[in-house]
C-alpha cells in the first residue's frame, strides 16, 4: 500500500477528508492561529506532512508549539509541548493585531454567503431563542489574520442566508452606527488585511469571490454532486465554477490522523472499513 496513494471510497470518512482538505490550505512557514477542535487536528496534520515549519499559535498563550499529544482546547497543557514560548492571552492578541498572523484556522458553526459567522445567538439578540457560546476569539482572529479558513460539519442550517447576528466578520459587514452593509475592504480601510478565504465542510470546499466576497463551491467531495451541495445551503450557492472533486486523503494522512494524532478518537471516529 503506497503511502502517498489516495485512499479509496469507504477507506476514509467525510470527516477525514474535511480534515485533510483543511490541512492543505496551510502553507509551510506560515504563522497560524488555530481555534479549538477540528482545526487542531487539521493543523497538526499539516505540521506533520507538507508544512513542518508552520508556526502554531493558540490564543491562550502558546507560540510556535509542537504538541506531542493532541490538545483538546487552546488552553490545554498539551499545547505547550515544544513551544518556542508560553505566556498569555494579551500577548497572543497583541501580536495578531501587530500583523504577525498569516492564517486563522477556525471551527465554524453558522456561516452565511459572505463568510459571516454567528456563534452568539439563535434568533433575535434582544430576545434570543438560544444563547450560544459567544464569540471567543473568532472575530479577533478573523479581523487580524491575512486569511481565515473555517472547518465545519455540513448541515443545511449551518449554511444560512443571513446570520441573525454577526459574531465574526466576513466579506460584507455592517457599518455602525447605521448598520448598512458594506464591503469589508471599505469598512476596514487601512486595517484591511484579508478575510475568510475558504470553508471546508464534510460536503466540499468553498471559497469566496475576490471582488464580491460571495461564497462559491470550489470542489465537491467524492460521492457528492454540486447540485446536492447547493441543496444543502439555505442561500443560492454558486456552483458554476467548480474545479472538480476534492482529492481524497492519502494513506499516510489517514495513518497520521488515526494512529498518531487522534488515537483516542476524540475528534474523528475511525473509518469502519479500515
Amino acid at each position, binding site marked *: 500500500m503506497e503511502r502517498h496513494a489516495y485512499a479509496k471510497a469507504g477507506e476514509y470518512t467525510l470527516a477525514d477528508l474535511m480534515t485533510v482538505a483543511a490541512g492543505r490550505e496551510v502553507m509551510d512557514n506560515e504563522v497560524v492561529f488555530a481555534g*479549538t477542535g477540528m482545526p487542531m487536528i487539521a493543523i497538526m496534520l499539516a505540521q506533520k506532512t507538507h508544512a513542518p515549519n508552520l508556526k502554531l499559535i493558540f*490564543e*491562550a*498563550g*502558546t507560540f510556535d508549539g509542537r504538541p506531542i*499529544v493532541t490538545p*483538546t*482546547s*487552546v*488552553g*490545554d*497543557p498539551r*499545547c*505547550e*509541548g515544544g513551544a518556542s514560548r*508560553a505566556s*498569555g*492571552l*494579551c500577548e497572543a*492578541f497583541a501580536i495578531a*493585531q501587530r500583523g504577525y498572523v498569516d492564517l486563522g484556522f477556525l471551527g465554524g458553526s453558522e456561516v452565511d454567503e459572505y463568510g459571516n459567522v454567528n456563534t*452568539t445567538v439563535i434568533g433575535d*439578540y*434582544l430576545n*434570543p*431563542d*438560544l*444563547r*450560544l*457560546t*459567544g*464569540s*471567543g*476569539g473568532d*472575530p*479577533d482572529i478573523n*479581523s487580524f489574520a491575512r486569511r481565515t479558513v473555517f472547518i465545519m460539519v455540513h448541515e443545511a442550517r449551518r449554511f444560512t442566508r443571513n446570520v441573525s*447576528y*454577526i*459574531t*465574526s*466578520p466576513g466579506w460584507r*459587514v*455592517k*457599518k*455602525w*452606527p447605521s448598520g448598512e452593509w458594506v464591503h469589508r475592504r471599505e*469598512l*476596514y*480601510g*487601512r*486595517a484591511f488585511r484579508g478575510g475568510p478565504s475558504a470553508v471546508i465542510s464534510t460536503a466540499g470546499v468553498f471559497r469566496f469571490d475576490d471582488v464580491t466576497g460571495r461564497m462559491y463551491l470550489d470542489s465537491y467531495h467524492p460521492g457528492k454532486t454540486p447540485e446536492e451541495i447547493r441543496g444543502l445551503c439555505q442561500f443560492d450557492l454558486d456552483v458554476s465554477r467548480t474545479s472538480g472533486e476534492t482529492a481524497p486523503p492519502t494513506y499516510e494522512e489517514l495513518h497520521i490522523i488515526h494512529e498518531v494524532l*487522534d*488515537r*483516542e*478518537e*476524540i*475528534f474523528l*471516529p*475511525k473509518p469502519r472499513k479500515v
Partner: protein
Amino acid sequence: MSSKSKRITLKEAAEIIRDGTLLTFSGFTIWRRPCALVLELIRQKRRNLHLVEVNGGPHSEFLIGAGCVDVWESCWIGHELYGKYGANLSRKVKNKEIICEDYSHAEMGFRFLAAASGMPFLPTQTSLGTDIHNPEYDMLGRAGLRNGKNPKIARKKYETMQDPFFGDGEHVLVPAARVDVAVLSVQQVGEEGTVRIGGQFFTDPEICRAADTTIVVAEEIVPEETLRREPRLNDIPGFQVDHIVECAYGAHPTGMFGHYDVDGDFIRNFYMQTRTQEGFDEFAREWIFGTDHDAYLSKLGVARLLNLQANRALNFSTRVKRGHK
C-alpha cells in the same frame, strides 16, 4: 519578615466577596478556575454578582445556575469538549434573569490590560463590522447601569476615534475592566503572596492588577525564599496579593497544569444535568450544599483523582480518557 500573615481559609475568602461585587477569575475556559471558592460562594448564598471575565467556563455556570449572578460581561462560555455551550447562562438570558454584555475575546483581554495599567481604555481595530459593535446591543446601557452610580462601570460600551498619528483610520476604544475582586487558582504562592504559575498564565497577572482586592487560592503555600531564588520564574509579585488560601484541588473539575487534568466526566455530567433549573438544583443538592471542599473530594474518591493526576514530566494526565477509545 514580621508582616501579618496573609493566610485565610476558603470560607473566609468567600466572605470577603460581598453581594454585588464586580468579580473576575484566573484561568481560561476549563483550566485553572477557582471552583472550590466559587462553590463556597454559592454555599454562602452570594447574590447580585457582576462577573467580568476574559472568558467563562464551568465556574461561571455554577454561579449562574445557583442564582448568584445578575450580570455576565465576557465573550464566551462553555465547556469545550465536555459541553457545547453555557446552558445555564442561556436559560437565564432567555428568561431575562441575567444581563449578558458581549465583547470579543481580544477586547476583553485588552480591557483587563488597560485596567491593569491604570489606563481608562485601549484602542483596537478588532471585530469591525460585527454585531458586537452594534450600538443597539449595549446591554448594560439599555439596563441603565452606565449612569456612573458604580464608578467602575464605564459610561459607554465603546467609543470610536480616528487615529491622529498615522492615519490608520477608525479605532474602537474598549473601556478598562475595573473590578473589585480577582480570585485566582494557581499552583504555588509564597507566604508573602508571590505567585508562581505553571504553564500558560492566560490573563492572571492582568486581572490581579485590574482588581482592587486579590485572593489567591493555591495548591500549595510555599516558603517565600524558595520562590525568590528565581525571580524571573514568578508571575505576580507578593505586594499585589491580599489574601492566600492553601487548597488542594482548588480548581476541580477544571484542570491544573502539572497537577491534575480536567475532569471531563464531571463537567459533561454537569452540562447534561443542568440544562434545566431543576437539574441544576439537583446537582447543587448533591455537590454544593450541605457539604464542603474536603467532603467533595472524598466523594470524588481516590481512584478518580489518581486518574486525573498529571504526569510530572508532561504536565497533563496520561491516564485520563478523553475520546471514545
